[in-house]
């Protein structure tokens, strides 16, 4: 289980997180929503230890990862996969080498076994046979799918998604949403998704958390969030300019 306890983070003069408290349920998809620049990606990076909080705890399976050294933190990270906003594929490697990277890094599998797993993961994301292509030869949607294949290469327990459908057309958005749903179901994953897309949020989220002014102000099922009377949540979901959320 993942738990954030009173997490604070400041960059320079800007306090981004002001006491975040959040529990992520195992085996479910939690979607984190909030206004742009509100600290959602920073929150996600805390969960995987890319950023350390100024104060507070980040607990993963009972262990506070903020107290771990690099070696032990790497052991925790092996439980995770992450799909970055622009996929973050390694430009100098082919698609096959990208997906194989965590396998070569952390397992002693033979090249044949690695090839089979790579083909399987690419098949799971609907991209069979493109092992020899370079990331620069792929469309945005294909890059995200390869990024997802890489994220699940080691069959992690937890997968983080940083705005997986941002910048994609509606058809591709729906395809990625379905892919995340299927992957979560088939691999029994705990998923944490950052998204602005309301359709995606309510389609794939078992739980939704609203981040506003550095705190989680609401956390519940999609139905509970939809029927919320919190003026911030209401303004966000309606997309209205009127309300407490200052867009400037």
């Amino acid at each position, binding site marked *: 289980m993942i738990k954030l306890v009173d997490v604070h983070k400041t960059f320079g003069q800007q306090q981004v997180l002001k006491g975040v408290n959040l529990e992520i349920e195992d085996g479910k998809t939690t979607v984190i929503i909030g206004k742009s620049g509100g600290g959602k990606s920073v929150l996600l990076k805390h969960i995987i230890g890319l950023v350390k909080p100024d104060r507070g705890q980040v607990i993963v399976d009972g262990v506070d990862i903020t107290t771990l050294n*690099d070696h032990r933190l790497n*052991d925790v990270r092996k439980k995770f996969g992450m799909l970055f906003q622009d996929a973050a594929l390694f430009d100098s490697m082919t698609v096959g080498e990208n997906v194989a990277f965590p396998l070569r*890094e952390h397992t002693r599998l033979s090249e044949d076994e690695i090839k089979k797993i790579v083909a399987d993961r690419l098949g799971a994301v609907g991209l069979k046979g493109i092992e020899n292509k370079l990331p620069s030869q792929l469309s945005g949607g294909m890059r995200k799918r390869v990024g997802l294949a890489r994220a699940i290469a080691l069959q992690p327990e937890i997968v983080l998604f940083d705005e997986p459908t941002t910048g994609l057309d509606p058809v591709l958005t729906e395809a990625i949403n379905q892919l995340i749903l299927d992957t979560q179901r088939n691999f029994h994953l705990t998923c944490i998704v950052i998204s602005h897309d309301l359709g995606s949020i309510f389609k794939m989220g078992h739980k939704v958390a609203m981040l506003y002014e550095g705190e989680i102000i609401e956390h519940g099922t999609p139905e509970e969030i939809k029927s919320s009377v919190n003026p911030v949540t209401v303004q966000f979901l309606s997309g209205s300019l009127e309300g407490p959320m200052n867009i400037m």
Partner: protein
Amino acid sequence: MKLIITLLDHLGKRILSSVEELGKIITLFFSVLLWMFRPPLKAKNIFKQMEFVGVRSIVVVVLTGCFTGMVMTLQSYHGFRLFGAESMVSSAVALGMTRELGPVLTALMVTARAGSAMAAEIGTMKVTEQIDALYVMAANPVKHLIVPRVIAGVSMVPLLTVISDFVGIIGGYFVGVILLDINSGIFIKNMTDHVQESDIFNGLIKAACFGLILTLVGCYKGFNTRGGAEGVGRATTEAVVLASISILVSDYFLTAIML
């Protein structure tokens, strides 16, 4: 008075940030040493970097070395002729190439070519979250990105210097003997009489140090890139400038130690 204080304030801040940066580069060096001796080492990555730093720099190094040798011979000849010492031209050219110009100019050319590319490539990886992806996959970026490049720099720059020295002397021979009519036997004899193994060896030690500097600085600047495409451009420029200055400054201190 206010102006002087402001100037001193700016100067002080620049000095402090430069010292801080030097400290970070030295810390990176120790991190590289640590990861260099932790197996497994990815031989494929190392050879790939050696090919990039070494093999692909051969043409530019040959051109630089050759024309440097040629112009040195031309300038030395006209200078030495004033004292009737034309026969010493070959010694001057060979000593100049092996002790100084070979290692320094080779390192500067490799900095411009490979050092800048390292900063640009790693900087681009930084701004596109590829470095974060390495961390997320429990892979250390120093081991994967920087160690192969440093090994390539330290091993390839001395080899390129050998090529530079050789073609520089060949170029000098062409100008001296063919164009300026110096006796070929005297040219070769004076060169072999006055150039010691230590001159060549010290030049290669310098070259290895310069290879370390240019790769560390290039990788450091790439690793600390911020701000998108503009940041990558800035990091690349800063890498070349800082590495070049560092090579020239360290050249003085290395020479002082060796002489």
